[in-house]
């Protein structure tokens, strides 16, 4: 029996996550993931107006803002047989693209970087050498004066004695490998990123009214028709350009520079059997010609199309009443009506355990990049190969904590590039007098709809059943449910639990290595506490390309 360590709260994530690991001889031998909060949004939706659903589900998460609203309007549109106009599809793509850009930058610099970057070490860096490093690795080299200013600022902050968010951290831990100069460079970009993300969020405000929780989607299209002016589109384009430049010149180079000092993490934090993506960014009709393809791959990169009949789930270890597996259209969410107790030998989480073909499946940037790579997606393949070559590691390194974090940067580049074409199409539509953004429709008495798509944290599906013009049932299957789910009835661990096994832990009182793998999945716990109850009787078709 090894030593048990509990990390709760896991910080620098969305929501309330508790991780427990067992450490033996300096390595994790067992792990448990627990979601610690339940609200029950699906229960709230029953009996309400289907047109309102997207507002409710968007509040699943303010970090993954927008994405549930998008999935929801798509599900209702399928249930009501609505085909949205091309401009609405493009604007939804643009909002989604800017969500990826924003989300991934914030994740890398503000949620994940401090696992790898020692801010205290940056205080002793040589600004001139930092400028040299920047010249070697960055697409936007910065000079010695710049780094010297940043360093002075950090010193002033530290000397004030009020370390605020940087208090009680793991500074000086033996697992930090970066030289002082790389720490200073990354710290500078932490600060730059903070400023940039506020600007990037304005892309949502331009076509969505505000961020977080943009408010321009409606069932049938989008409402921000008055923002389709050359000036407004140009405003959007300028911010997109600046954000894309940061992704190309700062984010990806930083990722590669930092990763080059942590190559051992290319062999830690993998262990998953299957990687699942539904695909996203329709470039023709609503589910046609996806920029990032859907599919399932295994560790040998063998590709197969997604078959939703193979999805099943399990509630054995979660705080819900026992129930048979059901399709999401008839799925149920029944939290235990009473006090719940955390017990790793029995029930220990609010998250359920989805399975694909009987096994746990990882979703998210790594899954998307692997699926695209396996399908021979040119742009993805080029970037993956470039990353592997730069780091001088083999393909096996993709299946790891390092690979997962690299994949997030890679897809940000791919999506940022694709946005240009969408902007151009929108402009030419408007120039030709086509400003149609909404398809009028009437509410049917009944209908069923669902949609599979992919969002920053992974594969997402929403399902709705309408009866008498009201929501009879609503269920959604969320990325962090796939990744952070607990064990199932066969005692099989969830993806994060499996990924943690084998992680080295140098000092059990400071488990920074555990944080590295957990953060590489970009946890969103408020989202994760949702339910899927699928079974094999598909009553409608969901197209996955």
């Amino acid at each position, binding site marked *: 029996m090894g030593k048990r360590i509990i990390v709760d709260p896991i910080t620098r994530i969305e929501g309330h996550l508790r991780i427990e690991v067992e450490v033996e001889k300096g390595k994790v031998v067992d792990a448990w993931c627990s979601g610690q909060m339940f609200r029950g949004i699906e229960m709230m939706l029953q009996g309400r107006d289907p047109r309102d659903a997207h507002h409710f589900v968007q509040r699943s998460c303010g970090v993954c803002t927008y994405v549930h609203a998008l999935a929801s309007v798509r599900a209702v549109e399928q249930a009501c047989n609505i085909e949205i106009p091309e401009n609405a599809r493009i604007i939804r793509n643009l909002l989604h693209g800017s969500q990826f850009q924003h989300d991934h930058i914030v994740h890398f610099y503000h949620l994940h970087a401090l696992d790898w970057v020692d801010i205290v070490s940056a205080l002793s860096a040589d600004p001139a050498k930092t400028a040299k490093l920047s010249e070697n690795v960055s697409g936007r080299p910065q000079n010695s004066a710049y780094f010297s200013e940043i360093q002075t600022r950090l010193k002033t902050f530290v000397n004030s004695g009020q370390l605020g*968010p940087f208090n009680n951290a793991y500074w000086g831990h033996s697992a930090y490998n970066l030289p002082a100069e790389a720490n200073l460079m990354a710290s500078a970009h932490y600060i730059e990123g903070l400023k940039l993300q506020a600007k990037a969020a304005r892309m949502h405000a331009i076509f969505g009214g505000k961020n977080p929780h943009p408010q321009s989607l409606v069932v049938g299209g989008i409402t921000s028709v008055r923002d389709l002016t050359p000036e407004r589109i140009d405003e959007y384009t300028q911010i997109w350009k600046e954000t894309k430049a940061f992704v190309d010149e700062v984010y990806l180079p930083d990722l590669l520079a930092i990763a080059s000092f942590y190559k051992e993490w290319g062999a830690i934090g993998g262990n998953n059997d299957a990687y699942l993506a539904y695909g996203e960014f329709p470039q023709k009709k609503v589910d046609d010609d996806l920029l990032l393809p859907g599919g399932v791959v295994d560790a040998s990169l063998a590709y197969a199309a997604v078959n939703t009949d193979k999805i099943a789930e399990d509630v054995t270890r979660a705080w819900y009443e026992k129930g048979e597996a059901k399709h999401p259209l008839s799925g149920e969410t029944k939290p235990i009506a009473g006090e719940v107790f955390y017990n790793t030998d029995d029930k220990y989480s609010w998250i359920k355990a989805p399975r694909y073909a009987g096994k746990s499946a990882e979703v998210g940037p790594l899954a998307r990049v692997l699926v695209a790579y396996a399908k021979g997606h040119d742009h993805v393949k080029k970037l993956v190969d470039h990353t592997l070559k730069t780091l001088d590691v083999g393909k096996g390194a993709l299946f790891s904590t390092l690979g997962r974090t690299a994949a997030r940067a890679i897809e940000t580049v791919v999506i940022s590039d694709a946005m240009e074409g969408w902007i151009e199409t929108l402009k030419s539509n408007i120039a030709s007098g086509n400003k149609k953004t909404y398809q009028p429709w009437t509410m049917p008495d009944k209908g069923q709809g669902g949609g599979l798509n992919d969002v920053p944290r992974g594969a997402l599906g929403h399902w709705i059943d309408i009866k008498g013009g009201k929501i009879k049932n609503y269920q959604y299957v969320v990325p962090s449910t796939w990744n952070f789910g607990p064990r199932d009835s066969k005692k099989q661990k969830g993806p994060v639990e499996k990924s943690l096994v084998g992680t080295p832990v140098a000092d059990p009182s400071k488990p920074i290595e555990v944080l590295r793998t957990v953060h590489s999945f970009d946890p969103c716990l408020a989202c994760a506490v949702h339910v899927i109850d699928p079974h094999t009787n598909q009553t409608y078709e969901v197209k996955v390309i």
Partner: protein
Amino acid sequence: METNSSKKFYEVLESKGVSRRDFLKYCTALTATMGLSYSLVGQVAAKIEKAAAIRPPVVWLHFSECTGCSEAFLRTPDVGGIILETISVEYHETLMAAAGEQAEKSLHDAVEKYKGKFLCIVEGAVGTSYNGSYGKVSGKTFLEIAREVIPKAAATICVGSCSAYGGIAAAAPNPGGYKGVKDAIGIDTINLPGCPFNPLNLLGTILKYLDNEKIELDDYGRPLFAYGETVHDNCPRLEHYENDEFVEEFGSKEAELGYCLYKMGCKGPETYNNCPTAKFNDATSFPIQAGHPCIGCSEPGFWDEMTPFYEEM
């Protein structure tokens, strides 16, 4: 006349990549939000300078939330860095480097060291059913944490509708028995509702608080400077309302002309907030400007009281 300290302050700003122009532009927006006349911009800027020297400790608690209000806080334009350094964020689960035991230590240390002096900011609702069992941090329920920390704060600001009134977590049937902080533990709070709240309103509130200025509140605990008028009162489409010019279908000619959204279900007439004047994301837009009706997100119980959203009031 520029004092030495203010000169130094601007030097610090420049070093943070914020130009004086940016800063003053920001202070201008803030001054308007605080309901002050343009002539007081200099004074507001001076308050921030003064605040920068003090850096009062802040403990930010996360209960049943979506983190959208933390995200809103991070969208404070141009000066995210200043905001982080104007106050000293002693505990904030989304931002802090420490985790687990070390994070717990940060919370405990801040609450003890600054007892009676720290500002507590709360995001998210408090579960009350089954002893608060539906939401925990570090094995303690939100209810326990609220009872332990909030009474020790100098003042508590609830950001967003969840901590103010229960928000989405409290929408019917509310399985977790979620409530706003005041209803859950009986302590008065300053409420900045919204889904999410507007970060300008938080900064305005903090500045007034640091200045020992009395913050006038309405019956729901909302500062009057930000929530004293309805969205409708200041709506740029008000003239269309008065002229009976309404949008009756999205995508229509009327929608393109920017007519009033009242018949599309706009809740602006019953919603107290400064969205039309403060706007969001560096004054980029707000929902009605984006052609969508107001959903009333800063009103107590709006998920039940204001729905269906698309039906005329």
